[in-house]
């Protein structure tokens, strides 16, 4: 019980500290980082204190310290799973799917007719529960990473396609007239004007797709996989009620997801430095 009360006390103190900090120093960059960090730590302390203080069984919810210990002790296994699911399944599928989507968007670019048809259909498909095709693709491509990559390809394709098609249409009449006064060819207009102008839209799609890629790769493993991979490990560890291992995999997935997203956001910053949404931040 002491642990639980201690954690609650810490929570109250930390909240008061955050309220005070937010009031006094909200424009300090360090404080802007410190406040969410303290909030995160508070959640962990609360979690640890309540689980230990109330003797919650680790089968239901293991404390963070136990999860941390499990991560430390099974690094090689976590790396194997990461390699199988993220690098082989998600990343290769992501590259293929996004590449195909951009290629199709450019290919239909010359036909406004096809664009008018593709945009609503693509938007519609992007809202569908596409993960559902995972069992089919596992049947077609086998248990190994190829089927996971295939699921990822289908999942990322439509959001990226829709954004890219919208991006290629994003130039205004003035810019197109300009190109006309210079007698620019179609390809010159595409390369010099429309592709650069589409980049902010493209990266919107690419960022959404990072999360989808991880979801696709992990969920597809629930329908069959070799004896490694994050989805495989989660489903078997759940079966054995080895919850610390499940949480360890979740932590890795969360870190991988944030890192993947962060990487794409970083590239975006380099490519679309000129866009109003990027300019303010140095």
């Amino acid at each position: 019980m002491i642990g639980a009360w201690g954690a609650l006390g810490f929570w109250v103190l930390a909240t008061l500290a955050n309220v005070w900090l937010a009031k006094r120093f909200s424009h300090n960059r360090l404080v802007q980082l410190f406040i969410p960090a303290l909030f995160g730590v508070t959640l962990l302390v609360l979690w640890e204190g309540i689980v230990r203080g109330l003797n919650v069984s680790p089968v239901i919810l293991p404390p963070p310290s136990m999860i941390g210990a499990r991560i430390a002790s099974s690094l090689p296994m976590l790396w194997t799973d990461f390699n199988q699911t993220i690098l082989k399944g998600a990343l290769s599928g992501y590259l293929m799917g996004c590449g195909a989507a951009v290629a199709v968007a450019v290919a239909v670019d010359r036909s406004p007719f096809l664009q008018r048809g593709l945009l609503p259909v693509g938007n519609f498909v992007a809202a569908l529960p596409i993960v559902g095709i995972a069992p089919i693709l596992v049947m077609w491509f086998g248990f190994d990473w190829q089927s996971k990559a295939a699921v990822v390809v289908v999942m990322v394709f439509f959001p990226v396609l829709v954004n890219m098609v919208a991006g290629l249409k994003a130039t205004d009449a003035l810019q197109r007239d300009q190109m006309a006064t210079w007698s620019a060819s179609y390809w010159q207009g595409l390369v010099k004007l429309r592709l650069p102008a589409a980049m902010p839209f493209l990266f919107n799609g690419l960022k959404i797709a990072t999360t989808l890629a991880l979801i696709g790769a992990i969920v597809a493993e629930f329908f069959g996989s070799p004896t490694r991979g994050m989805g495989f490990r989660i489903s078997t560890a759940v079966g054995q009620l080895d919850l610390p291992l499940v949480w360890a995999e979740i932590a890795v997935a969360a870190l991988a997801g944030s890192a993947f997203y962060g990487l794409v956001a970083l590239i975006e910053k380099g490519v679309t430095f000129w866009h109003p949404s990027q300019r303010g931040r140095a």
Partner: protein
Amino acid sequence: MKSVLPILTVLFALVLIWYGAAIGLNAQWTRDQAARAGVEVSFSDILSDTLSQARPKLPAPHQVAVELYQSTWDEEVNGRRGIVATGTLSNRSLIYHGWVTLSATMLGFAFGTGLGILLAVGIVHSKAMDMSFMPWAIASQTVPILAIAPMVIVVLASIGIKGLIPKAIIAAYLSFFPVLVGMVKGFRAPDTMQLDLLKTYNASRFGTFWRLRLPSSVPYLFASLKVGIAAALVGTIVGELPAGASAGLGARLLSGSYYGQTIQIWAALLAAAALAAGLVVIVGVIERIVLGRMGMRS
């Protein structure tokens, strides 16, 4: 409405590609069967066989359509276990499974949306809450939360919570974040001039919220509701995947994959797609009506 023809063209092209792929993917099996039987097969034989196999690699669209009809209308109206014969939905019909999925989705969606809006109100009015919580809310969208859905189901089952609730929890969780982030944006949509105007009227915080922030946030609300309801449905379906779930579209997917019933998988998939489309369309219609009444229709 001038995009109807292009859309139909694209859909027609998709169906054509589907048929082409079905012939291509299923032809191998036909040839293998023929070789085993020692007979020559002509192209027309392959054509007719590939489009009518019982367990094709890729069922043709009309096969899926027939399965959809049989497992909905036919099963309920003419079937021995259908609603006409027994008064309850047949557990072999997609209507029953769709209903199971839909009810969990709606329950979770309602909770997730409500919680998201409430928290957004708090965040807009408390700087400490904003600075503590928002970075995590945004970061959490980059995390493949959906992938842990089955674990939530199993763990909750181990402490005795089964059925609708665990799936609804996942659906709520998934619809919560888009709604939260969208509504924070929406409540902050009024610009400084509009806020300053209300300040000159000496409006209270509640007055400002009620008369300015809330109405301004409505377009954002509907945009995030559309994302949220689609996410809730995906969450429910993935929540139905772990072995043990016996009802719901996700369970149909899993059992289809377990028994190699490809036609059943595709039918369940299309039913899920139709459900998703229906939900998004309903939200869209409500959006048009509400925004139209408020004079905000674009």
